């Protein structure tokens, strides 16, 4: 006999979907466009690619590691979206782009994103396949490989997005020592302090995941982020009520585990 489980979780998911429908309806039908908070890290993309163009040196983008079947794949996808933007800008400015790829299964995706970006700028012949560097799949081997790339190719800008561990700090320090303008984006809570300390620009946590929507300004994307915000306010309300009730001696946690 089939029956539902994890009902509270399902209800919350359904609630987000309901918010999504409402916000989408508001944006497309009622033309209510919410104002997007600016993310400084995002505005820096132009500056980062522009600097490399001016100096006539390449941009190095490390796209992170992470299996596509792992539950943290959202980070990897957000990294791919930013990579697409960087590739497009590089193609437009005729700036060389070196890509350090951390996980083998990303290679096909990265290559097609780059092909697509270069094609849309009519610069497909500029794309050099030897610039897709597979860095070996682990933190240490990617450190080793990227140190060497920084020494040998002398990039002017260094972008580090996606799934990282402790190497986020290492790469930032190495990038700074090599005189690069750097941007990082990650969702790994361990690494936030280093993201802030070792890089010139950063996108951390949800900021990074919301980037794609902030770039595109596409109604379905914006509606999605807006729905998330509404849900956030609801959650804050729930926390306030729950905490006060708990102080008064009523614990509502039992009702949240069905």
């Amino acid at each position, binding site marked *: 006999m089939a029956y539902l489980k994890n009902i509270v979780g399902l209800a919350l998911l359904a609630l987000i979907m309901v918010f999504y429908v409402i916000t989408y309806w508001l944006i497309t039908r009622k033309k209510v466009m919410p104002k997007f908070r600016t993310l400084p890290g995002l505005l820096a993309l132009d500056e980062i690619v522009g600097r490399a163009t001016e100096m006539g040196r390449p941009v190095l983008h490390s796209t992170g590691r992470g*299996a596509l*079947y*792992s*539950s943290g794949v959202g980070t990897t996808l957000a990294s791919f979206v930013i990579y697409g933007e960087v590739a497009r800008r590089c193609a437009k400015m005729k700036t060389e782009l070196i890509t350090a790829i951390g996980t083998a299964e990303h290679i096909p995706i990265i290559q097609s994103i780059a092909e697509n970006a270069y094609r849309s700028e009519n610069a497909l012949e500029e794309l050099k396949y030897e610039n897709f560097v597979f860095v070996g799949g*682990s*933190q*240490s081997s990617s450190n080793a490989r990227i140190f060497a790339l920084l020494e040998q190719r002398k990039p002017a800008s260094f972008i580090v997005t996606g799934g990282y561990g402790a190497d986020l700090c290492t790469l930032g320090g190495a990038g700074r*020592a090599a005189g690069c303008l750097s941007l990082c984006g990650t969702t790994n*809570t*361990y690494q936030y302090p280093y993201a802030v300390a070792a890089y010139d620009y950063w996108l951390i946590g949800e900021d990074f995941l919301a980037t794609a929507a902030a770039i595109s300004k596409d109604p379905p994307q914006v509606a999605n982020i807006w729905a998330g915000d509404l849900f956030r306010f609801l959650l804050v309300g729930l926390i306030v009520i729950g905490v006060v009730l708990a102080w008064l001696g009523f614990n509502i946690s039992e009702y949240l585990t069905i």
Partner: protein
Amino acid sequence: MEMQEQIKKLLTNKTFVQGMLIILLIIPLARPLGLPIRIDQHSINFYNIIENLEPGTKILFNYIPPVVLMGDLVPQSIPVIYHLFSIAKERNIKIYFVGLSVADGILQLLDTEVFGTIGKPEDYGLKYGEDWCNLGFVAGGDIAWSTFAQNIRASIQYDRYGNPIDSLPMMQGVNSVADFDLIINCGEYNTMIVRHWGTPYNKPILVLCLTGAVVQDVEPFYRAGQIKEYLAGVRAAADYEKLVNRPGRAIASLDAISISHIFLIALIIIGNILYVMERASGRE
């Protein structure tokens, strides 16, 4: 002014700072002072939980420290496993080692680092298949964790040494995580353990974690009651070595740890003094 610039140049010089640090660490490692230590409350609680285990407890021990992080994880596991082994025989405690990780699993560490240091389980009178077993490595993130939790035989048919798991006497009647009494994790993915093994089956979890993981991965779960107790890093390993009265590498590395902390704090303070001086001279 000249001097300020020179100090700043020296302290931001990669070779100087990194070389200096390596030399500063080598000295105390080669000649540790062996200063007394203060045992942390978490270590005492952890010790008491293991010490007071009920007879017949079945422990699921997820042992999968990644190679790069073993410096912080392996030293703690050595005294803890030693403690478990030394009480296992008389209390009939059964230990099931398994290694669930996302992609890279290095099971050799249990043999080389742990058994190489404290001796094989057989030396403690434990018999393979009856008192302890090693179910081997399972790859695959969230899905692997939840499959294993629901039905062990769906994700594992053979143990690490190639025996069918049904041939192990201690696996009889053990079908899912619900059949264990205690979960210990020594590895990176504490969140996964809580999410798939602990919370759904309401099992107590003990965690051996990275010091750096405490704040974000362990404390929130510990405060919410989803993790029962934790040990963190080499610091806790030294405590535990003291508690089980078996001094090892962790105690010997404490001086180096002190030095590295003091070095970094000094760098930060000097950096800030230089910054204040720069600003002061800039205002003139």
